[in-house]
């Protein structure tokens, strides 16, 4: 039954509220569920900073992530396919990728601001970095894991290299590409909050909203904001899963 899935979280929330009401959990360190809910209401109606409402913060953040993610996919998928497809390209490009990959996206923030200034471009760049590597690596893995027998079949059908690339490598990699996309957008969304700490020109963004809530000492809004970020991340993942089912009908 569906109810069992929600039983444990419900119990946790109720006991949490109880402990808060009794004063055992300090309100300044961990707001109660009720306070968080009221904080959420304030985010919707009053805004944080006051005057800047939640839905606009969501919108700007989503646009930033969409830009960074789209760039990561547009560059990462073809690059991954080529690297997976050609041993020569793999040998040439892999060392560079392996060297850049371990650098956390957040470490790029000072350089990003230097190159792109404060604003949409530098935040999208940070998110791009977070999403790019999972996309490339999963695409490569997808291309490499294609059963060699398909290449043999194509060769017996007198296929050209272009035929093999577009008719085998690309479709065969698609499931892994989607895995990479989901992981990439997840990381991009998570990196978002920190990316927006660097300064948002427009004054809108969920990360910026949380940082301001911290400045104005509203832990209830901080946590409400975190929950919003979590829920949106979940929804994005869900949407991608649905998209995947529609596009990959053959699995």
């Amino acid at each position: 039954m569906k109810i069992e899935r929600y039983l444990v979280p419900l119990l946790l929330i109720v006991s949490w509220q109880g402990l808060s009401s009794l004063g055992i959990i300090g309100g300044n360190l961990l707001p109660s569920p009720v306070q968080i809910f009221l904080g959420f209401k304030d985010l919707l109606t009053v805004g944080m900073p006051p005057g800047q409402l939640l839905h606009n913060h969501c919108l700007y953040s989503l646009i930033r992530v969409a830009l960074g993610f789209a760039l990561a996919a547009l560059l990462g998928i073809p690059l991954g396919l080529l690297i997976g497809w050609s041993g020569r390209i793999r040998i040439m490009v892999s060392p560079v990728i392996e060297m850049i990959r371990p650098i956390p996206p957040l470490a790029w923030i000072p350089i990003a601001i230097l190159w792109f200034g404060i604003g949409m471009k530098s935040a999208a760049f940070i998110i791009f970095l977070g999403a790019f590597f999972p996309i490339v690596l999963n695409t490569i893995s997808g291309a490499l894991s294609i059963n060699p027998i398909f290449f043999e079949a194509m060769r017996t059908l007198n296929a050209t290299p272009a035929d093999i690339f577009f008719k085998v490598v690309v479709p065969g990699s698609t499931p892994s590409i989607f895995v990479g996309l989901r992981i990439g957008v997840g990381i991009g969304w998570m990196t978002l909050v920190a990316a927006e700490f660097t300064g948002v020109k427009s004054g809108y963004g969920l990360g910026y909203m949380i940082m301001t809530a911290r400045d104005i000492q509203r832990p209830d809004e901080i946590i409400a904001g975190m929950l919003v970020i979590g829920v949106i991340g979940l929804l994005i993942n869900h949407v991608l899963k649905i998209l995947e089912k529609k596009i990959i009908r053959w699995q």
Partner: protein
Amino acid sequence: MPRPYSSSFLIKRRSQMKKLFIFLFITVVTGMSLGNVHAKAPIRIGYLQNDIHQLACWIAIEKGFYKKYGADVEVAGIFRAGPEEMSAFAAGALDMGYVGEAPATTAVANGVAQVTVMAQVNTEGSAIIVGKDNPEREVKDLIGKRITIPGHSTVQDFLLQKALRKFKVDPKKVSIIVLKPPEMIGALKTGQVDAFIAWEPYPAKAQTMGVGQVLLTSGEIWKDHPCCVLVADNRFLAERPEDVTAMVRAHVEATDFINAFPDEAVKIGVRYTGMDEKTVRLAMDNVKYTYVLSIEGEKEYVDFLSHLKYIKVPDVNAFTEKFINQETLQEITGK
């Protein structure tokens, strides 16, 4: 084949181990609590990074005023802006601190930290700086431009909002960005922002570097506005009031020292900010060092912060009453 242990042996062993554990446990716990009673923990203080307003703190350290009054002080945190320092108070990591009156008011009003203001640290001492090459002449010229503040609910945020309203500029028409002061001059220089407002010596540095010039000093926005205050965590104030008094004494003497021996004060300022003497002198010219508390000033803070919807305070007078402790200062200075 080793002889298996008999069961009576094992039982005896087990009960011996139990006794040992209990003994150790009691010893450790007693030791820990006794330890607390014997040694008095140093006073954990915090201040803002490169904030020339808080020069009195550095002087009290350098000239030994804290020691003189029996205060064993430990610098537990140097913060990039006021709200961060207030978070540290909330976490119980600080006993006393030099911090902006706006972030302190916000934190207390929102129930996140419990501190009391013990003395003023300075008035005025900030400025709106615009670019050297494309200087805006008046506040109205800021419309459509990008200004950076050290954080929301800092004194500088407060002052900027006041200035915009004073000169009838709709705050929504200005793009406000949050950056930490060390990043501001670079951002102005590279044209990423058109103006910044920060505590001294950053405005002075922008000028001596030839990067910017003053649009408006904070004194021109609100004359004699209280800025930084010396606060004490309420728990600490209750447990060790004599230490708090000692700190205030040291602070008073350090503040007098700045006004009496400005050249030596400059030297200490140079050491703590890492900036050159010319900059520090220019900065200090814009700051008024005083320990005199302003009740009216605080009420203005509460009113305006409520207007900004940062806080919700139903009774301004009661709040201010509780927030500021005038007795200790009066006791020390007779004022």
